[in-house]
């Protein structure tokens, strides 16, 4: 999807740069190889773009103009309509599935509008109303309390320990990161994924995450609500 956009907009001097927030770079590789990108496709195992650009979930995107100036803050990024909008939730769905799908339908369904905004920017540059001036970009950026800095430090210690093969030792550090920066879903989703059982194992993946972290993605997602799950583009 992003590769197709990159190919479409390359002649308009737009480069798509994808950044995988994967602590284990090898987890991102199959997806990258399947996409066969002609654009830069990078790996951010330390989740540095969280603090540098205000990324707090995926997928999100930031727009940067030709002079290296941010013209649009990190927002949920999609290029197509939501797959969930058309799903009809009926009573024979298990309750847990109904709850998740109900909230999926509350996720911002902005793909078409966001794609149109990108194309408008590609064609009109700073004349596009979607390209924000620096003061507005700064104003829209989130506050950064010291708790967020501490969360980043705790996440980094956990990442390092995980990389060194001390997966269990990483867990309490990731839990701290979650407590300190609860709106940062990249810290949560990354950690929860690594608590899952391996593919093909008998035990229930969600249960394993629940045992380790006291919650699971579906539980936390339903509790937060689809409308609050990510940063809705303010177009």
């Amino acid at each position, binding site marked *: 999807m*992003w590769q197709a956009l990159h190919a479409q*907009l390359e002649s308009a*001097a*737009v*480069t*798509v*740069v*994808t*950044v*995988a927030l994967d602590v284990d*770079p090898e*987890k*991102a*590789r*199959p*997806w*990258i*190889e399947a996409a066969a990108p002609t654009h*830069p496709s*990078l*790996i*951010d195992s330390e989740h540095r*773009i969280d*603090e*540098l*650009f205000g990324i707090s979930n*995926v*997928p999100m*995107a*930031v*727009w*940067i103009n*030709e002079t*290296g*100036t*941010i*013209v649009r*803050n*990190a927002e949920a990024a999609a290029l197509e309509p939501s797959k969930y909008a058309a799903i009809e939730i009926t009573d024979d769905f298990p309750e847990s599935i109904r709850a998740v799908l109900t909230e999926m339908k509350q996720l911002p369904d902005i793909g078409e509008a966001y794609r149109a905004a990108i194309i408008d920017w590609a064609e009109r540059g700073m004349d596009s109303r979607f390209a924000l001036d*620096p*003061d507005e*970009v*700064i104003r829209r*950026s*989130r*506050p*950064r309390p010291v708790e*967020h*800095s*501490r969360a*980043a*430090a*705790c996440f*980094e*210690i956990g990442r390092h320990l995980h990389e060194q093969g001390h997966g269990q*030792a990483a867990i309490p550090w990731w839990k701290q990161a979650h407590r300190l920066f609860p709106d940062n879903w*990249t810290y949560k*989703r*990354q950690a929860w*994924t690594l608590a899952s059982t391996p593919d093909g194992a008998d035990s229930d993946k969600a249960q394993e995450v629940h045992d380790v972290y006291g919650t699971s993605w579906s539980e936390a997602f339903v509790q937060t609500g689809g409308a609050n799950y990510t940063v809705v583009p303010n177009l």
Partner: protein
Amino acid sequence: MLLDTLELTTDEFEAVTGWAAEPEGMCKGDICVPAPDTVTADGHLDVEAVASRLGMALVADPEHGIWALGPESGGQALSTAVAPELELPDADGNPFKLSSLHGRKVLLVAWASW
């Protein structure tokens, strides 16, 4: 960023964080933060004191002998709209600098296998 010691020289701290020890204090780009009495005679830095001045959390993991220094805090996440330099590897470990794309519009898209 990870540290395996707090015994850092000013040069080492600058290499890791981009903050340089100047007469005015700790400076990065156009910003200087007063940081009196944080540099010793032999050019070492009181990392804990400087981190505190810069709003950078310093977290210790004594069991593994490491510290992690968090990013600056205070105010808004962006104090400027100038995009920070970003150098990251591709899947094969080849480094790539975001600044190499100056002259083009960049759509930076964050995703993950999870």
